[in-house]
């Protein structure tokens, strides 16, 4: 996930899509051929320019460094990949793995002045890791240059070692060319050190981001938002899409809840509050639209509640919450209510209960009819000629299932709309808050449940007993469902 291996074949997509702020500036690399076609002078010029660009902002984040390096990442990449490999292989004091003295052995191909502390040191380790990095082919490709550079490196080794003394020995005869070359070597060395530091900073931050991402995935998975934990084999792409849309809806919903909360606390005028409340209702309508579309494509996904968190699934009725139960929960939360409102809500609850009962009965009849079809003929003897006929019949009956889920969702939607009609604006706001919070708690319960300690010591009587009691009711409800 880091910015390594820019020399690898694949090009990087826009990393910002991950939302973690990765800056893949170390992306596309220049092919070795291009690189070595560059004139030495222009290369130096690029370095000088980059150095000027870089020096004032030495402590800045890796991104600046990376963009500055974009033009000449290839050689650095090979060192960097080696760096990465060795960096990950050793504990934090990685900054010490590059001795400041260049090693006197064949190294990764770099032109002249850039053969300094960084690249020459790392080539030893890069040799070790050449198998692991995609840059290996690049190294091999230009291995023929190594012998040339070797000479230069040895020369520079001497010059590096003696550079400090050189400046003191101004009396000695040094042609300007040598002086210039020495200066450039020093500059390049410093630039390399800066780049090394920046790159390591980049690696560290990438490591942090990676850890953060893993944490997020873990959390999301425990909340049942991802199917990563559950077997994915039976979920169609439509189902995966629905799960994603549902997760997005939940995010949106969370924001609206916060908005409602704020609006209530701030005692906004009814007009403003009404707008927010109406929007929340419309947002619910969107959810039901989503679910209706899903019912047509994969009703089993909805009705088995895979998209919901485990605790919500436990209370699932025909692919969602049971309206009369919701009303029963809401009634005491919405005090004070006028008598007329109480009567209205009670009537709504009763009507919903009757409708739910009717739907449940209809579904029960569907189950029975389906079971009869499946058991048609003999289940034991092989001579069952009408298998495909049976299946065709059963398929026809199954298609009724989506009608039930859609009707159940319709009940849920109507319940919300009726509540919106019966209640005042402030009451409706509190009603939506209550519904949102209730489901939040169910989701929280689910995540706590999935992350609870599984090893219940038999000896630990007290805890064991409690946990088992807590587990029982849920299991019973599951079996009822």
């Amino acid at each position, binding site marked *: 996930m880091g910015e390594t291996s820019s020399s690898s074949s694949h090009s990087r997509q826009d990393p910002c899509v991950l939302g973690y702020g990765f800056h893949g500036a170390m992306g596309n690399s220049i092919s070795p051929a291009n690189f070595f076609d560059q004139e030495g002078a222009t290369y130096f010029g690029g370095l000088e320019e980059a150095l000027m660009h870089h020096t004032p902002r030495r402590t800045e984040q890796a991104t600046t460094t990376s963009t500055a390096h974009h033009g000449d990442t290839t050689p650095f990449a090979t060192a960097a990949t080696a760096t990465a490999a060795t960096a990950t292989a050793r504990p934090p004091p990685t900054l010490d793995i590059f001795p400041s003295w260049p090693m006197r052995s064949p190294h990764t191909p770099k032109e002249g002045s850039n053969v300094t502390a960084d690249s020459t040191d790392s080539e030893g380790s890069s040799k070790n890791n050449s198998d692991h990095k995609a840059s290996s082919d690049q190294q091999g490709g230009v291995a023929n240059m190594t012998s040339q550079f070797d000479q230069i490196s040895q020369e520079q080794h001497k010059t590096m070692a003696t550079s400090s003394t050189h400046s003191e020995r101004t009396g000695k005869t040094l042609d300007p060319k040598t002086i210039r070359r020495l200066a450039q070597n020093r500059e390049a060395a410093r630039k390399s050190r800066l780049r090394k530091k920046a790159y390591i900073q980049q690696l560290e931050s990438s490591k942090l981001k990676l850890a953060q991402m893993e944490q997020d995935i873990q959390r999301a998975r425990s909340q049942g938002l991802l199917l990563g934990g559950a077997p994915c084999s039976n979920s169609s792409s439509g189902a995966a899409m629905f799960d994603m849309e549902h997760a997005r809806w939940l995010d949106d919903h969370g924001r609206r809840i916060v908005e409602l909360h704020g609006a209530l606390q701030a005692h906004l005028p009814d007009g403003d509050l009404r707008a927010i409340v109406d929007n929340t209702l419309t947002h619910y309508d969107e959810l039901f639209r989503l679910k209706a579309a899903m019912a047509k494509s994969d009703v089993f996904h909805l009705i088995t509640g895979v998209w919901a968190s485990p605790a919500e699934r436990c209370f699932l009725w025909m692919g969602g919450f049971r309206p009369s139960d919701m009303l029963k929960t809401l009634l005491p939360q919405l005090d004070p209510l006028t008598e007329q409102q109480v009567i209205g809500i009670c009537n709504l609850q009763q009507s919903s209960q009757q409708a739910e009962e009717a739907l449940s009965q209809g579904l029960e009849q569907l189950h029975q009819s389906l079971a009869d079809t499946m058991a048609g003929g003999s289940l034991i003897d092989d001579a069952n000629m009408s298998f495909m006929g049976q299946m065709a019949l059963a398929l026809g009956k199954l298609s*009724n299932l989506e009608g039930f889920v859609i009707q159940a969702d319709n009940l849920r939607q109507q319940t919300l709309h009726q509540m919106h009609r019966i209640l005042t604006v402030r009451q409706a706001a509190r009603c939506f808050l209550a519904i949102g919070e209730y489901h939040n708690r169910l989701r929280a319960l689910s995540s706590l449940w999935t992350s609870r300690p599984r090893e219940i010591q038999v000896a630990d009587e007290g805890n064991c007993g409690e946990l088992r009691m807590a587990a029982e009711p849920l299991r019973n409800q599951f079996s009822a469902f």
Partner: protein
Amino acid sequence: MDRVTKIASERAVVVFTLSSCCMCHTVTRLFADLGVNALVHELDSDPRGKDMERALLKALGGGRGPAVPAVFIGGKLVGGTNRVMSLHLSGELVPMLKNAGALWL
């Protein structure tokens, strides 16, 4: 459609169904729970059931939805499952039934 209208006016509440339709069972069950003695007319057992089904589908306003269950109250077409459920939740169904004389309280 004439036959439909004729049968629909035979009782205060008339529901046209098909034996294969489970939603029809839902609607008839709901009326029964409300204390309504609805006339349930199964189209499969009617010789002109196919025509009536087509007519009902058109009357319900769409090529999409199922033709059944089709609910008539007081001889007038009310709608399908969706409509009946919505009416019931909004509290309008019961007054409608009372008006048609299907319910006494």
